[in-house]
């Protein structure tokens, strides 16, 4: 029993030493390298103002109450009746994608952008007029290298640069 335990201790230490001397790292050096995401990645949401039929299904299905119908001022005054369009609140959004799935005219689309910082709480709320302008462009100090995560049987995850 004692011998078996000692052997296990030695094995654990040997494994640790192997990794320490192996020199491989799984870390993505984020601001220098950014990952290229696969299609269907659920990032921030784009809104197409023209194809939207204002059905309100997105607001209805939203489990986090992030998507809401706002009264669109100009259109309401034009038509003399309240017109509602969707707006999104990124402080609540859980990026589940229900709104994108349910949209009958594909007016809502996912982008691959998720790394955006906001200065204030209010900036994260996108009423329809702001929602149509699209997502903010991520800003980097210097142009980052684009990499793709590749599964490697020996080493786990590798990052390969993409052109």
């Amino acid at each position, binding site marked *: 029993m*004692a011998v078996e335990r000692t052997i296990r201790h030695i094995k*654990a*230490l040997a*494994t*640790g*030493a192997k*990794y*320490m001397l192996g*020199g*491989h*790292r*799984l*870390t993505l*050096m984020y601001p220098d390298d950014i990952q290229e995401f696969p299609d269907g990645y659920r990032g921030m949401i784009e809104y197409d103002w023209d194809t939207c039929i204002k059905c309100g299904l997105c607001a209805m299905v939203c489990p986090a109450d992030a998507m809401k119908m706002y009264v669109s001022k100009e259109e309401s005054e034009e038509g003399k009746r309240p017109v509602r369009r969707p707006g999104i609140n990124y402080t609540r959004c859980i990026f589940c994608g229900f709104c994108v799935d349910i949209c009958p005219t594909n007016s809502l689309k996912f982008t691959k952008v998720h790394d955006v910082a906001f200065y204030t709480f209010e900036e994260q709320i996108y009423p329809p007029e702001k929602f149509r302008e699209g997502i903010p462009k991520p800003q980097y100090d210097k142009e980052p290298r684009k990499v793709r995560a590749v599964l490697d049987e020996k080493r*786990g995850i590798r990052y390969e640069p993409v052109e």
Partner: protein
Amino acid sequence: MQDLLSVIMEPYVFVPLIFPGITVAFLLLLVIIWLERKIAAKVQLRYGPLYVLKPLGGAIQMVADLLRYLFQEPIIPKTVDKLAFIMTPALLFGAAYLPTIAIPVSPTFYAFRNDLSLLIVLALSTLAPIFTVVMGWASNNKFSLIGGVREGYIVVSYEIPMFLSALSMAVLYGSLDLVEIAEAQKGIWGIFLNPVAAITMLVLMYMSTSKFPFEIPEAESEIVAGAYTEYSGILYGLVMGASYVKLYVLSLVFAILFLGGWNPIPGFMANDPLLPGVLLFIKAFIIIVIGAFLRAVYPRFRIDQAMDLGWKTMLPLSIISIFISLVEIMIMGGA
């Protein structure tokens, strides 16, 4: 200037203030905490501290951390025992570094030589845990109290076997004088003469300084930071440094007892404290780095597992190591 330098080079100034005393201990603190994080990161396939001085891999991370500790406001809660709360970090750090005065640097360079210097070092190194217990009591916090009591439990389970295994080497060399012990290893090192004692002492050293499998008194995920929970600012910097300094002192003792101290050293260099000191430091440093490596490999033991190890495995092993020493003396015919 010349006078000042000659005063500093006097052994009784140099030993407590430069090496192995406070200056080297402090520099070691800056290096070893960074190295510990770096080693743990490498084992776990991460980078560790990197962005403070990137070309050197974040080597001055601890300087930045030290500055932060210095300028952070030390918060003293209203309900603590103020005197004990403020005094214990300094006393703990002092008690951890105190044993360095009795550690010789070379056969002729030491603050003082005594027949019982091994006992002095071991006895002084037992002072520090008392302050951890006091700290746990003075903080008036349940986590601190649990941490203090855990430290008490750990102390009773490591102290006896650790001293027995250290003293088994004294039996083997027939002396309690660290200079004589190191000189006796000119030929063959203690670790080869009595490996059982070496392994026992090594494991218990890590236990006594809350290194990783035994990081029980300050178990982060269970009791916040144990006895150190209420501390902040430079007070926390001191208590965190204390266990590293204690490990440093015990590693020096280990290097002298088992790794031949400053041996092998060419005879003509023996009177110059530089080369023996460097050799001794390198040996101690390797021991500390092994301790840092353990952090990445082991999860934390439960307190009963650690006490089990202390009383049921290490105590018998340390008694066996005394018998090994006695048998070797019989075979070799006297120390």
